[in-house]
C-alpha cells in the first residue's frame, strides 16, 4: 500500500510538470528526467554497483578454494562441479524466496543468491585454468624448491589468470543484469526503477534504468579487461 501511495504522489507531481516526462507526454528519451531525478539514478546505480561487487567478490572468495579442493580430490570434483552448476538451473526469482527462509528480506539474501550463480562459471574456469598449467612448469618449480603453497600462489594462479579473468568478466556482466531481479526483495538497484516504471507506466524512468544497467555492465567489463592487462605483463611481452 505504501508503494501505491508513493506512486500516486510521483504521478501527481509529474502531471503538473510540463516536461517531457509528464504523464501526458511520457517520452522514452527525456533529458530533463535525467537532470531532475539524478539523485534517484545515482542512488540506484550505487546500490546496483554495491550488490554486484559484493556478490562477485563473495563468489570469487568461494570459488578459488573450491577449485583448489576439486583439483586435489578427484572424488569431490564431480560433486563440486555438479553442485555449482545445479544452482544456475533454479531461476533467480525462485532462488531469492528460498534463501529468504535463512537470511530474511535483506540485501544479504540478494548478495548470497547472486554469488551462488557466479560459482557456476568461476569454479569451472578456475579449474580449467589450473589444470591447463603444463606439468613441465610444475616440475621445474618443484625442482627449484617451491612448496605446494608457493607453487599455487606464485606459479599456478598467475598462469591460470587469463582463464580466471575471462570467467570473472562473464560472471560480472551476468551479475549486473541479474541484480535487477533483486527488486523482488526491494534490493534490486536499477531494477527498483524498472519495477516502479512498469507499475506507473513511466517510460523515461524505464529507459534510463535500462541504459544505465547495460552501461554499468560494459564499464565493469572494460575495467576487468584493463586489470587483466595490467596483471599479466608476460602475455604482452610475447606479443600474444
Amino acid at each position: 500500500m505504501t508503494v501505491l501511495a508513493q506512486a500516486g504522489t510521483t504521478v501527481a507531481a509529474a502531471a503538473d510538470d510540463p516536461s517531457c516526462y509528464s504523464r501526458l507526454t511520457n517520452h522514452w528519451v527525456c533529458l530533463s528526467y535525467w537532470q531532475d531525478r539524478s539523485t534517484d539514478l545515482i542512488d540506484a546505480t550505487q546500490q546496483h554497483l554495491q550488490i554486484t561487487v559484493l556478490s562477485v567478490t563473495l563468489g570469487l572468495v568461494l570459488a578459488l578454494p573450491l577449485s583448489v579442493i576439486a583439483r586435489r580430490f578427484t572424488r569431490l570434483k564431480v560433486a563440486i562441479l555438479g553442485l555449482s552448476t545445479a544452482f544456475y538451473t533454479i531461476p533467480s526469482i525462485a532462488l531469492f524466496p528460498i534463501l529468504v527462509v535463512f537470511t530474511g528480506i535483506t540485501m544479504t539474501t540478494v548478495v548470497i543468491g547472486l554469488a551462488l550463480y557466479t560459482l557456476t562459471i568461476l569454479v569451472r574456469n578456475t579449474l580449467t585454468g589450473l589444470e591447463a598449467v603444463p606439468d613441465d612448469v610444475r616440475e621445474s618449480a618443484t625442482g627449484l624448491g617451491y612448496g605446494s603453497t608457493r607453487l599455487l600462489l606464485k606459479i599456478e594462479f598467475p598462469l591460470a589468470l587469463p582463464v580466471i579473468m575471462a570467467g570473472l568478466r562473464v560472471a560480472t556482466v551476468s551479475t549486473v543484469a541479474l541484480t535487477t531481479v533483486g527488486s523482488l526483495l526491494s534490493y534490486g538497484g536499477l531494477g527498483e526503477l524498472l519495477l516502479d516504471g512498469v507499475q506507473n507506466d513511466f517510460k523515461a524512468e524505464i529507459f534510463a534504468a535500462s541504459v544505465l544497467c547495460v552501461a554499468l555492465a560494459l564499464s565493469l567489463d572494460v575495467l576487468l579487461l584493463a586489470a587483466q592487462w595490467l596483471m599479466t605483463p608476460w602475455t604482452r611481452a610475447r606479443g600474444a
Partner: protein
Amino acid sequence: MLGDAYTYLTQWSNWTGSDGMLQLMFEQLLLTFTALAITVVFALPIALYLGHIGRGGFLAINISNIGRAIPTFAVLVLLSVGFVGTAELGPYGRAGLATLIALVLFALPPVVTNGYVAIREVDKDIVEASTGMGMTGRQVFWRVELPLAMPVIMAGVRLALVQVWATATIAALVAGPGLGNVITSGFYNSNYGKGLAGAFVVAVVAFALEMLTFGAERAVTPVHQRRSRRSEAPRPTVGAVM
C-alpha cells in the same frame, strides 16, 4: 514461513481453478516450449549453415556476450510498456506476446553460439576425408558434421531451456503470465509462505526440465564419446547464467 509454504502447497484449491498453480504451470510450460520451438526451427538452421560454410562466426559467438549484458527484466519491461503491450494472447495469458518475444530473444544466444561452434569443432580431418571420399557438401553436412555436432547442439538447447524457463518466471514482475505470479503476489502481499511455495514449484519444474534434456543430450551422444566426456577437463561454459 516453511509451515505456511507447506500449507499452501498441500491445499488442493491452490492448484485448481483459472489462477491455480496447475493452470499457471501449463501456461508457463506452453510459453517455454513455444519460444524454444521458434528458436530451434528458425535460428538453429541459420547457425548450423553458418558453421558449415565457416562464415559469420564473429556474430554467432558475440551474440552470447551481448545477451549476457542485457537484463531480461529490462527487456520484458521495455516490451510490455512500449512496443508490444500487455494484451492477452490466447492460452499464453496476459502480456503473452511481449513475454514470448523476450523468451525467444533470450533463447537465441545459447542456441546460435552452440550450433555454430558445434559444427566448427567437428574434426577437420574427418570433414576432409569425407570430401575426399566424394561426398557433396550437403552429404558432409547431414551425414558427418551434424551427427558429430549433435551433443554440443543439444547442450545449447539445454542452456536455452533453462534460460527461457527462468525468463518466463521473471515475466510475472511485469504483470506477465506464469508461475512467477505466485511468487510476486506472495511477496507483494507479505504472504511469504505463498511466495516460497511458488518458488519451490518453479525450482522443481526447472530441475525436472534439466533432467529431461540431460537424457535427450545423452541419447544423441555417440556411445564412444560418453565415457571420455567425464574425464575430460570441463569446458568453459558458453551460455548465459540466469
